[in-house]
């Protein structure tokens, strides 16, 4: 398994754990359960997968190409799903004179990141498995 595959699996596991934690805590804590999204901060450890060991190639031209495509797909999906949905729904949910709760803005950033990284990681794994 290459470094980028390990990184992609790591991202998916961290995101899954974060979302499961939110889901489990939500009945008890309500909106405060979203604090469990803080687990996704572990995603910042991803670059450690690319530590270079002696004589080992961790990322080559094909790996770079896969990562570029994955990031592009994640970015596209983010705009289509997240921005389009949010822009369409917000006038109806909050109205023209309504106010968006701070907590919605806060956690929407997390969910946008979760969407972007999840799609990118899945795309990385699929491209690697296809050869």
């Amino acid at each position, binding site marked *: 398994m*290459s470094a980028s595959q390990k990184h992609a699996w790591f991202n998916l596991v961290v995101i899954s754990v974060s979302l499961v934690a939110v889901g489990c805590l939500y009945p008890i804590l309500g909106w405060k359960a979203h604090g469990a999204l803080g687990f996704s901060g572990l995603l910042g450890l991803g670059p450690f997968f690319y530590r270079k060991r002696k*004589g080992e*190639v*961790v*990322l*080559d*031209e*094909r*790996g770079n190409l896969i990562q570029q495509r994955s990031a592009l797909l994640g970015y596209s999906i983010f705009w289509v799903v997240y921005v389009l949905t949010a822009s369409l729904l917000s006038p109806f949910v909050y109205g023209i004179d309504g106010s968006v709760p701070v907590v919605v803005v806060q956690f929407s950033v997390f969910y946008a990141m979760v969407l972007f990284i999840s799609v990118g990681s899945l795309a990385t794994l699929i491209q*690697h498995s*296809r*050869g």
Partner: protein
Amino acid sequence: MAGDKRAKLTNRIRRFRFERNEMTQQQLASQVGVTRQTIIALEAGKYVPSLLLALRIARAFDVSVEDVFQLEEEE
């Protein structure tokens, strides 16, 4: 018309590896500076290498690029 032609890149990497004392995929990968997965993808014809990588692979076998890679054009 030339623009209507579809091209496919084939290669003889596997053959050259076996002719070079059964060089392993990992040995070739280390020699040309890529991962073993990339050599696997190349041999399976699922990845088209950059010119730089193609030249490195040809150099590893001490042959020309055309000996390793062939362009097959179909109408």
